[in-house]
């Protein structure tokens, strides 16, 4: 059964039709590349899944049950986690503090509760180990490489039992070596049965790591096929409009 299913989703802002009648489904443990030019509607689509916008039309289902999201916290509660394009990290805090930001663990009784540093360091360390990242829980984020920062942002999504992780341009602003690191992180998420939606402009990344590619143009879904049955040339054509639809 699909972990997330979108049926005839549309979103318009006044007269502008940002997303037009899109249906798609995401299977557990699948990496889906979501591609499209600027303004194609991919970020609007993602924002609806993340609970930032409500769809104008259409329905979303998660594990067969209807999904209605009023705010980002609702999405999180349903196991939808987002890695923001700017990663949303605080440079002045440690890796562990960033992983637990907004969900800090505390110990103590009643109103007398203090931060549980030991458990947060330990758990964050375990998450980094699961991701095979060299990130250290006590290091300050400001001293980290782009790949390590990605690991911190991704570890954050693994705190709760995430079912889907939406990643917004995770490889846009980092070095070539770090891109490989991030793609590995994505594979580790997938190996744990988590579905990943990878929003990206970078053709090689999608073709390296994704199982499926969805292409959007002018608010419509113009392609949805397995990576094996597609090619970078075809996807480029679909993005630019040289190929109308497949």
């Amino acid at each position, binding site marked *: 059964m699909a972990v997330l299913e979108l049926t005839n989703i549309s979103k318009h802002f006044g007269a502008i039709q940002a997303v037009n009648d899109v249906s798609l489904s995401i299977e557990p443990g699948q990496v889906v590349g979501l591609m499209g030019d600027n303004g194609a509607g991919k970020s609007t689509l993602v924002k609806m899944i993340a609970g930032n916008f409500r769809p104008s039309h259409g329905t979303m289902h998660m594990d067969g049950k209807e999904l209605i999201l009023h705010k*980002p*916290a609702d999405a*999180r509660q349903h196991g939808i986690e987002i890695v*923001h394009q*700017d*990663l*949303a*990290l*605080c*440079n*002045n*805090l440690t890796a562990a*503090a960033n992983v637990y*930001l*907004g*969900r*800090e663990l*505390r110990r103590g009784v009643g109103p007398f509760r*203090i*931060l549980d540093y030991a458990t947060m*360091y*330990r758990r964050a*360390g*375990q998450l*980094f*180990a699961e991701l095979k990242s*060299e*990130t*250290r*829980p*006590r*290091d*300050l984020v400001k*001293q980290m490489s782009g790949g390590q920062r990605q690991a911190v942002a991704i570890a*954050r999504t693994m705190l709760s039992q995430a079912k889907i992780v939406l990643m917004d341009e995770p490889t846009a602003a980092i070095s070539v070596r770090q891109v490989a690191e991030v793609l590995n992180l994505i594979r580790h998420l997938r190996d744990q049965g988590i579905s990943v939606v990878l929003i990206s402009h970078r053709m090689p990344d999608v073709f390296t790591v994704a199982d499926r590619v969805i292409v959007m143009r002018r608010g419509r879904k113009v392609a949805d096929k397995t990576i094996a049955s597609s090619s970078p040339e075809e996807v480029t054509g679909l993005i630019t409009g040289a190929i109308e639809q497949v």
Partner: protein
Amino acid sequence: MALTIDQPIEHKQQSLPARLFASQTFWVVIAVILACLFLSFATDAFATSKNLYNITRNITFVAIIALGMTFVIITGGIDLSVGSVLCLSSMILAVTMHAGYSIEVGILASIATALAIGAFNGILIAYLGFPPFVVTLGMLSIARSLAMVASNNTVVFQFGPDHAKLLALGGGAWVFGIANPVLYMILLALITGFVLRWTKFGRHIFAIGGNEHAATLTGVPVRQIKVAVYMISALSAGIAGIIQTGWLGAVTTNLGTGMELQVIAATVIGGANLAGGVGTAFGAIVGAALIEVIRNSLGLLGINAFWQGVFIGGAILLAVLFDRIRNFRRSD
């Protein structure tokens, strides 16, 4: 495998001495100690119990407000209204007690006033998006004006039936001959240090100063916390006002004029960063101490008091200079 997990978890950023040397607060402590040693040898008057009593007590008023200011500065904000809020809280206390109410009522009214002003500042800043500088600059003017209205611009020096209690509260020395204000300062510093290091609230304050957008995205209640920090800042000014009233035994409407700058200077010298994200309770106290020691020493060394501003200003620039040098070295 256990080894490979535990190693990074136990790994600390730097060893203890290395961290000390990298800390601005540490160097300011050294500066204070050296200055005290030098003054003890250079002058006869410095290391007397009377002078030390005066210095420690003088530190407290700036230091207590600097503790509150530390919260605001860590979030990346600023509160210019503290000097005027101190004056208004003192005046409300004085006027209430002068009218025949008990000290409890007076303190309650004074604290409530401070909290209301802090909440007003915080709501304009957090919910309406006003720049903190502008809001608190406006409040600097408003609060002092209200103090004049409350007292009709007179000096209040009779505090009704609880007059003696109020003077004992601020001017006494209940434990081991340590001035009461110093005890309050130590207590408040311990509370501040605890809140910053061990509570979720403290953690969120640092997060807001580090990256406000990230804090919002991760579900930190940014607006409520911002209102709270301006209330804490105003509350600290109110507490300092109450203590200072008891110590001085009189309130005028120019009480605390220009104090906001001393407080901000103390906070910055102590290692807080005006850009947000950095600051400690201990640093605020040490910063206030350095300013007071500089002031005291100039008097004892017979240097013209007009030079005071130059030395204090120099200390601010020097403190920030050290910070810049450290950052340059790190970025290399």
